[in-house]
């Protein structure tokens, strides 16, 4: 398979984006957004991870089969999170007779 050559400019751009997002994470952490604290932090983290996977790990330039395997990895992560949350989020549903 032919190796895709990525220009240094793209790498530098992604690096700067990741650094900026890290600063944003740190800044936002100092604000109390209530329930949105975790949502904002996780959103930034997901954007950063996506940039790393697409550019630093070359997935953007890889074959469709590679996309399938990368997708499977994230799908499995989603399974782990969803089924674990199915425990935590339903614990309060059970009302115990006093």
């Amino acid at each position: 398979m032919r190796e895709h050559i990525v220009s240094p400019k793209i790498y530098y751009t992604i690096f700067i984006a990741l650094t900026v997002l890290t600063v944003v994470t740190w800044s936002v952490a100092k604000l109390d957004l209530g329930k949105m604290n975790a949502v904002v932090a996780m959103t930034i983290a997901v954007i950063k991870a996506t940039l790393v996977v697409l550019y630093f790990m070359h997935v953007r330039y890889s074959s469709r089969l590679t996309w399938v395997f990368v997708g499977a990895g994230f799908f499995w992560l989603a399974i782990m999170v969803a089924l674990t949350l199915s425990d935590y989020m339903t614990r309060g549903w059970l009302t115990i007779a006093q």
Partner: protein
Amino acid sequence: METVAEITPPRTHYLNATYGVKSWLLTTDHKRIALLYLASVTFFFFLGGLFAAGIRIELLTPQGDFVQAETYNRMFTMHGVVMIFLFLIPAIPAVLGNFLVPLMIGARDLAFPRINLLSWYIYTVGALFAVLAILFGGVDTGWTFYTPYSSTYSNGNVILTGLGVFVVGFSSILTGLNFIVTIHTMRAPGLTWFRLPLFIWAHYATSLIMILGTPVIAVTILLLALERLAHVGIFDPALGGDPVLFQHLFWFYSHPAVYIMVLPAMGVISELIANMSRKRIFGYKFVAFASLAIAAFGFLVWGHHMFVSTQSVYAGMVFSFLSYAVAIPSAVKVFNWTATLYKGSISYDTPMLYAFGFIGFFIIGGMTGLFLAALGVDVHVHDTYFVVAHFHYIMVGGTIMGYLGGLHYWWPKITGRLYSEAWARFAALVIFVGFNLTFFPQFLLGYMGMPRRYYAYPPEFQVLNVMSSAGASILGVGYLIPVIYLIWSMRYGPHAPANPWGAAGLEWRTSSPPPTLNFEQVPVVTWEAYEFGDPSENAESRMENRG
């Protein structure tokens, strides 16, 4: 096993192509790496067996007289850690899979031969950590490393053992990666996906679990180490953590790990049943897709280990339902194997005896798994010997029977020699009897309420415990007999023909033992999997080959 005397082995093959320790320790030949793994996992099998012997000796009497609680806890923990991480998980993929995947698909080697060797070195380094942990006194948490005991209170070598498990996991990931890439990219011309042997489908499914699940146990162990060493509150309630989160993360890998152990064994059994009954597997595609379904469903059921852990009862209901669902593809396999036997030309050679043993044990292990998947029943038998018996029927009765069946079936290919069929059948029988005597009484003990992981028990449980210990000693003898006659056969056994069983499959179309690059010419496949042609012709060729 008897055969015609005048078979001449190939002049050069992978075993004599090069000589010396260096030629083995730096080899990139998948067949030699398989043998390196064979030696390693055999060592750890007997090491794990020694701990099992200690457990069974202690449980001969109700009170603690051979060892006390502290030592007993360390014995069952090290038995579990060694057997699961250093034997059961690598056994079939790393030994038989490594040897056979390239041969079965008509390739010269795996896609990444050096990564393959690296995986063995990583396994060895991880195993050394575990051995060091044993030498320094072992660990007492149980192989499940439940928090907060493991992260805060245990005075055993948790970090060293955890490091061993962490490192060994990478060897598993590399093996899985190698198999997936090899199966995708290196199949012989004409060898389409639905012409692949079911052993390959099973290893493909296993590899998916290895690369999707193993990173999670690695991260979990890292978090455990972080809490134990740096007191970061993750799992310990006293530090603000949640112990049930550890169980979620641990079982997300460790339940699918059961399928890492048993799926390759199912692949072996598919080969044995088809070739030893001279029939194409009944419902080939169903069996192939059942492997993938088991791999996928296997990731959705982990909560059935946590029904009494304060896990939400609603989550418990979901996990219970999904656990029942995983029984469907498992049952598809069992029904299809038995349907394959119908009107087959069945031979009762040693590998087939192990295959029959596997089916029986797997049915008992699987059906009792359904008991445990039921929320109400599980509350009664949770953490009792019923669970111990259930998973030993799957892991020992399933995986080890598949492993031994496969080892006997492909031994002539691996070594170029034939072993004593009479001794081999005798050993298979001893193992079958010993296994049942060891583990069946444990179902009864568990149902009567004997908890697992206790060194002492009420006197009314003694008779069944003595039966179990007696069975374990028979089982131990059963496992030692093959070591003797297989090693004997390597030097004194008659030379094996290329295809002693008259079997279908590319691995039988090259010499025994195969040349370093597996085939003189790249095979072109124009036939379906398990295509036996005229059964009478095959029966004759089998007779000729085996004398």
